[in-house]
């Protein structure tokens, strides 16, 4: 198995674990963590597969770097919203999930 394929497999594993946890857990923080694990899997898949046979490819790496910034911004925003929701309702999960 080549390095690129190995990275891709780990990326698929992370995506799968993230999706599973995202569906199973109801608590918003756990869901956010699962979502981030899924995102990391996608990034690993993108960067890992792109270096298949030709060495590192700067274009997907730059894309992933952009993606990481967006993921950080959205995670921070989600945390702000969760804390606000917790302060308003006292719940760690959404009413649909209770």
């Amino acid at each position, binding site marked *: 198995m080549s390095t690129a394929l190995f990275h891709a497999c780990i990326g698929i594993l992370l995506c799968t674990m993230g999706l599973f946890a995202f569906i199973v857990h109801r608590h918003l923080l756990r869901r956010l963590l699962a979502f981030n694990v899924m995102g990391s899997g996608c990034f690993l898949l993108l960067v890992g597969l792109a270096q298949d046979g030709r060495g590192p490819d700067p274009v997907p790496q730059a*894309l992933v770097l952009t993606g990481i910034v967006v993921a950080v911004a959205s995670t921070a925003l989600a945390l702000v919203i969760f804390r606000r929701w917790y302060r308003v309702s006292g719940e760690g999960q959404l009413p649909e999930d209770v």
Partner: protein
Amino acid sequence: MSRLRLAAAATAALGFALALALAVIERPAAVLNLPALVEAEIAGAGALHPITAVLLDFRSFDTLLEVGVLLLAVIVAYALREAQPDGPDRMGLDTPLLRAVISLLLPLMLLVGAYVLWAGATRPGGAFQAGAILAASGLALRLAGLRVGGLDRAWRVHALLALGLAVFVAAAVLPALAGHAMLDHPATLAKTIVIVVEIALTVSIALGLLALFRLAPPQVDGPVFEDRRSKPRGGA
């Protein structure tokens, strides 16, 4: 947790994994040799490091939108902020040890941040990494209960938050006014433009990350409604 939910989650996750694996196995061969293309064009870009060149020259539209996303997140966080309680800042831990450590570490953190920004031209580094380091140093200051005097006025923070996107948009639109394509910098000016944009981005990213941290509703005494707190919570 119900068995049905577990089974549904496992089915969905396994199906997803299979679909992803199929997509990886059946992926089409690359049409373009992107590393070679980047290598061939890098002389006209404003940076010598391929990733910085892609971020700020070849695909700078992505980076422009990324800065927009960060600013948008900060704006939404501002819209959701609560009235801060009066009195001393609750974030600060008033220990002399923390202050002493920070007074030792802060100059080093600023130095590393500036170096990482500068290194982005030729090796791994750049605006986001430097901004993250600066945000971490701002966070350390805040944990120690120290303030940055120049940032006490809200309008200054707002202006600096918008600076990155404003400079980037200017760098995108000005070439268009001069008759080039949007974001198409003339090769002679590319290096200057990239450096100016990177510095502005670093300031805005650092303040943006810090603002997202600062704007989270403070932990005062737990939730507002007492009656719902006593209710047992399921799930999680």
